[in-house]
């Protein structure tokens, strides 16, 4: 993957647009089609495209695997934490109405927050799976080359 000039130029142009579209899908999910799941997958697709064209090592410098593991847990924590927060505020688990002054405002805040949690977890898990597969492939190739040297 060294000489794909057209791929490099086109993906450099496309990746910011894909990330922008992912954020639009994330925060516009209440009004149009989309939501956390789709946004997370689109966001991870942007990073995976970067990894496929410029190499996985460079993609790992954008988001390191350590941060990805933290983010994957953080997403679930945000979601479940919203449920616990509603209990502490006197409602049932995930009863968003108590999060703000009125039922409608609370629903809005709750849905936005849990969709954010969904998006973060989906994005980071997709990237974790991709990076793990790529790393494993690299390890297989390396050990093959090593055993040939011996």
């Amino acid at each position, binding site marked *: 993957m060294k000489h794909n000039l057209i791929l490099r130029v086109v993906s450099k142009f496309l990746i910011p647009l894909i990330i922008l579209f992912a954020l639009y*899908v994330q925060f516009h*999910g*209440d*009004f*149009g*089609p*989309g*939501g956390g*799941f*789709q946004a997370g*997958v*689109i966001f*991870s*697709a942007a990073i*995976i495209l970067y990894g*496929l064209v410029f190499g996985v090592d460079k993609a790992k410098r954008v988001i390191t695997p350590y941060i990805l*593991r933290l983010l*994957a*847990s953080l*997403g*679930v924590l945000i*979601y*479940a934490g919203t*449920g616990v927060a509603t209990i502490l505020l006197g409602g049932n*688990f*995930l009863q*968003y109405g108590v999060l703000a002054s009125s*039922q*409608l*405002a609370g*629903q*809005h805040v*709750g*849905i936005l927050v*849990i*969709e954010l*949690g*969904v998006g973060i*977890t*989906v994005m*980071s*898990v*997709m990237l*974790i*799976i*991709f990076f*793990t*597969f*790529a*790393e*494993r*492939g690299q*390890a*297989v*190739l390396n*050990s*093959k080359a090593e*055993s040939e040297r*011996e």
Partner: protein
Amino acid sequence: MIDNIVDITLLSLIAIHAIAIIRMRSLFAVVMLFGGFSFLSAGLFVVMDAADVAFTEAAVGAGISTVLMLATLALTYTPEEADKEEKAPTHKPWLPLGVVFITGALLIYGTYNLPGFGDPNAPSQLHVAPYYLGKSLSETGVPNVVTAVLASYRGFDTLGEVTVIFTAGIAVLLIIGGRRRVKPNIEKNGGDHEA
């Protein structure tokens, strides 16, 4: 009229993809055709006005799962055996063919008892759907009913789904993650180290 033409075109293309996937022996081409299959299905969902499902199908089915299948191909084959051909079948296909035909015939027979597509009197439309359609805007303030059901009415289910995805990530990390060394030909090379 135009709906019918679009439906027929999409369904024939999907059928062509399916037949090509069965006939092909090159695994790389099969993975690419899987992606095309998913993308055409997404188009079909758009025609059926299920924009959210189409979105997910296009992103996950055509995008991510194609990348993951390619990654699996790259893992399971070394560069020397790069042709990546599926092995030729060793037995005649009559038994599986018979099972598939009988199951297909039973499924088609079953569709005669199903209500028509989009029938407002179908049982699935009469359960909780009218409540969601009628009340979701006034109760949640969210214009997209799908989001209202997914995130608010069925918030607990969605928490479960997110946990499933999280678990999948952990499982992949546990099975093939980590920094351990891989020795593909340990049986063949095992004796060389002592010698």
